[in-house]
Each structure stands twice: as structure tokens, then as C-alpha cells.
């Protein structure tokens, strides 16, 4: 397709405390349906969205974290995590429920510059 655009979703909020993480995921899936080039960036508290082992029964809220694992079925395979954010929170790549590419702030900034559309959550 000739009119494919590069979309980046910038996720900076922790899950459950606000609705942003879930809303982002919804829009990501919509975008995927239109066969666009989709990247997901996780920085600041957004890195917490990918944490393994989320158990939401106690707060009676839907656990949407398994949906990140389903993204590859929608051909969304570009998941980027900011290293600085990850380190500051005591997290490592092994703590995430999906495979991600870890980038420095500078690399993340460069990637943002290459996008046609950037959506922030």
C-alpha cells in the first residue's frame, strides 16, 4: 500500500491508576486494522504497563495486560522501552511480558522524529 504512514504511540502512564494505558491500547488496535506502520513507545511510568504478573482481581478491574502479547497477531511488533525509565524503576527486560527493544533517550527521540503521526497517552 502506498499511503502507509508511520504511527507512534507514546505511553507515559502507569496502568489502572488512570485510563490512559487502556485507551492507548484500544487506539493501537484500531490503527492496526488499517494496516499502518505502528510503533509503541514506553517511557516514564509507561514502562509499568508491560510488567509481568498483573493480577487485577482484587481491584475488580479488567486485566488488559495479556493484550500486549496479542499485538504481534495484529502485526504490531515494534515495541520500544526507554532504558532510563526502566532503570529508575528497578525493572529489567526480564520483567516484561513481551519482547521489547530497549533504547536510550536519544535513540527514542530520533525515532519520534521519523514518525508521520505521534499519539500521546
Amino acid at each position, binding site marked *: 500500500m502506498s499511503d502507509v504512514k508511520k504511527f507512534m504511540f507514546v505511553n507515559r*502512564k*502507569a*496502568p*489502572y*491508576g*488512570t485510563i490512559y494505558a487502556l485507551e492507548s491500547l484500544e487506539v493501537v488496535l484500531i490503527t492496526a486494522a488499517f494496516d499502518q506502520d505502528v510503533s509503541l513507545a514506553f517511557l*516514564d*511510568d509507561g514502562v*509499568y504497563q508491560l*510488567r*509481568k*504478573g*498483573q*493480577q*487485577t*482481581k*482484587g*481491584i475488580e*478491574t479488567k*486485566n488488559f*495486560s495479556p493484550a500486549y502479547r496479542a499485538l504481534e497477531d495484529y502485526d504490531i511488533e515494534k515495541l520500544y522501552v526507554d532504558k532510563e525509565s526502566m532503570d*529508575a*524503576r*528497578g*525493572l529489567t527486560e526480564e520483567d516484561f511480558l513481551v519482547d521489547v527493544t530497549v533504547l536510550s533517550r536519544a535513540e527514542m527521540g530520533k525515532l519520534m522524529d521519523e514518525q508521520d503521526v505521534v499519539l500521546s497517552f
Partner: protein
Amino acid sequence: MLHIINRSPFADSALESCLNTATGGDVLLIEDAVYAATSGSAAADKLRAAMGRFKIYVLMPDLDARGMADSLIEGVSPVDYGGFVDLTASNKTCQSWL
């Protein structure tokens, strides 16, 4: 006095402001504030430093939801919703640091 914090220590100054302002008492971390009580996070050091003056509690259902139960630091007491209610009852006053 019971101090209730519900914001991530990385995104908001509520916890820091509380620890710097209040003289002591109970601090209960709920919702996104539970990340403060997880090992390796920058906020955990601030929390440890405050443990002499404050008794720190964390709401376990919120920690479980975020997949962070394994990362809870020592010296923080887990409570369930019943424990939350007990804290509000045993303290004469409570303040939510919104």
C-alpha cells in the same frame, strides 16, 4: 494521623511533599503510589529514610494488580481493604494528598 497517597512518585510530588511536611504517623500507599514501595525504584530510598518517623502501609490489591507484589520492600506493611478501613478508624484524622 493517616496520610493517603495515590499518585506515582515518578509522576507527582505528593509523596515527597507528604514526607517533607508531616511530622509522623501512618502513611498508606494506594493506586499508583504503590510503586514507591518497590525495590530498585528511586522512591524506595526516600521511603526507607522516612520509616523512622512514619509507619508505612501499602494496599496489596493495588500492588497485585500492577504485578509488583514480588518487589515489595522490607519495612512496609501490606494491608487489604479491611486493613484500610481499620487505619481510617484508628487514626483521629486522615488526609488524602491529592
